[in-house]
């Protein structure tokens, strides 16, 4: 039983980070109708940025976080202006290939700047130890959960109470109406990429603190896609619920099935199995809007 609860708890912590990354994806999709394959690569860049500011420059944690967020804002603005602005109104495949090209370029840049090597800053981030009975929660994960929850709450408040946040939600609803109401849609697009980038980078710093950072860290983006599909591609709440569900399911399934299966590695393929099942039986996810198409 303790084993099961332990798996549940660490799955929950992992799921919160997945949810955080998936939210970035959902925001871009809602506001600018672009599917961002490179979300996982923002995470990887975030991990490397964390390493640069925390270890190479020896900045304190708060300053590193600010610097990384600043870098993420610049990256987001550049990406939107240079790569995605020319793609407005293009078919789905063109936009997806563009974000793939973005992911490849980011991977190349990470190789160029950080050598694509395994970097770790274990023990640099502050830790909180918590013990409930026999359950121990890994300290790095706990701080990750807390940061994720804070970021999610900030985003919720942003979308509910600020002018720009409301503009973004309105754009998600209907672009043309919003334009006639005097909201600049290009600004909303830029803002959505900036938010996605910042959220990805924060997720990357958390994951980098837990397990180190290297190029394959970007594969976490794939898990975020499974989360997004399970929750429904245009639902932020869905992303949170599905993130936690997938994190827990993945951990429990891997914990019980990996000893039975010879090759192991179920945790890596599990999100894809979930993806296929969701796509076959409930294509629009748990909380997604069902698209109705007319000729």
């Amino acid at each position, binding site marked *: 039983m303790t084993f099961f609860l332990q798996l549940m708890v660490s799955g929950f912590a992992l799921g919160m980070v997945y949810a955080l990354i998936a939210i970035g994806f959902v925001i871009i999709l809602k506001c600018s109708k672009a*599917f961002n394959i490179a979300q996982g690569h923002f995470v990887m860049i975030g991990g490397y940025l964390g390493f640069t500011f925390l270890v190479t420059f020896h900045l304190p944690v708060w300053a590193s976080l600010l610097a990384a967020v600043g870098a993420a804002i610049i990256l987001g603005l550049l990406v939107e202006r240079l*790569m995605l602005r*020319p*793609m407005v109104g*293009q078919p*789905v*495949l*063109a936009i*997806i*290939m*563009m974000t*793939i*090209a*973005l*992911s*490849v*370029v980011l*991977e*190349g*840049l*990470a*190789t*160029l*700047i950080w*050598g*694509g090597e395994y970097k770790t800053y274990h023990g640099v981030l502050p830790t909180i130890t918590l013990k409930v009975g026999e359950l121990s929660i890994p300290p790095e994960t706990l701080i990750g959960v807390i940061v994720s929850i804070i970021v999610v709450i900030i985003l919720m408040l942003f979308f509910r109470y600020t002018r720009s946040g409301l503009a973004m939600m309105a754009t998600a609803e209907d672009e043309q109406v919003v334009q006639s109401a005097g909201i600049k849609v290009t600004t909303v697009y830029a803002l959505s990429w900036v938010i996605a980038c910042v959220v990805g980078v924060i997720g990357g710093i958390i994951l980098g603190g837990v397990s180190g950072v290297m190029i394959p860290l970007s594969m976490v983006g*794939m898990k975020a*896609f499974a989360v997004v*599909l399970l929750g429904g*591609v245009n639902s932020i709440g869905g992303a949170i619920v599905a993130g936690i569900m997938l994190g827990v399911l993945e951990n429990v399934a891997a914990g019980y099935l990996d000893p039975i*299966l*010879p*090759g192991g*590695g179920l945790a*890596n*393929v599990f999100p*894809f*199995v979930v*993806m*296929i099942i969701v*796509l*076959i039986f409930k*294509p629009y996810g748990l909380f997604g809007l069902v698209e109705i*198409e*007319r*000729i």
Partner: protein
Amino acid sequence: MGLPSGTFNQGYAQDMAIFRTRTQWVMLFAFLILLFACPLFFGDRILTILTIIGISVISVHGLNILTGYCNQISMGHAGFMAVGAYASALLTAKLGFSFWAALPCAALAAGIVGIIFGLPSLRIKGFYLIMATVAAHFIIIWVILQLYGVTGGSDGMAVPRPEIGGFVFKSKSSYFYLVMILACLGTFLAKNIVRTRAGRAFIAIRDNELAAEVMGVNLWTYKLQAFFIGCVFAGVAGSLLVHYVAFATTDQFPFMNSVWYLGMLIVGGMGSTAGAIFGAVSLKLLDELVTIVGPILAATVSPQAASSLGLIMRGLVILLFLIFEPRGIAHRWQMVKSYYRLWPFSH
């Protein structure tokens, strides 16, 4: 600007002809003769490159029918290639089939797996379908790795070279001929499949799915047919690849390859048989350029610059094509052709 000036169609057969004038026939045969004379002029290194290009062309033709003509975007093409590759490898190495029997079986196996993973396409499209095919790729590779006793898992397995009546396709030039004959056959089939009833149905589905259904195109059969045909091509290409390397591992079919095949389609031009060839050739040549420039860059600038060069170049090529020429090289080629047909008159 479909025809050289002064050429007029006077019947249905002429209208349908791919090669319409005598010059076009002459150019076709000149190209084929030059292609098959390559082993006389080039060394093993260039032949290897050409063989790999030939295999990619076969694979991209499949993806072109599936994605370019039928708009069912597949990002699991390398996974389907792996199915064909392992089917062929198992049949020849473990069960003692000859290569010639194993190749159709491999194609069939890949096609059937393609149909299975194409089933979600009946309810979903666009991004959802891409995710389903991405999942297909990872699940296929995972299953291959799990079947340790059969496939050798991550250790891989040795595969015999094909042979016919005692003659083994061992040398680079003999395998070059094998691949090129199949590539030409594949091009012929790909060009003609899209001119059949099924091909026109694919195009109708691509242009507007609902309208196609209203017009009486059976989405269920034709989408699955597109998946089957696309994956058959992938299976043949995968089988040729492992028999060429004489070894099969899952490392030969990384996820990024699935993405590159789509990139080849973008660069070459979607929905055009010539585009598939242009794309495969140009991106593979770009890879070769990178392998030549890479060591120079490593010596003069830094090893990091060399290892990132390939990624950044590939990313930039796809990016620039998407922004400046979304219709690919095939479209540029059409423009060049219509220009020289009218030269020296501009209108």
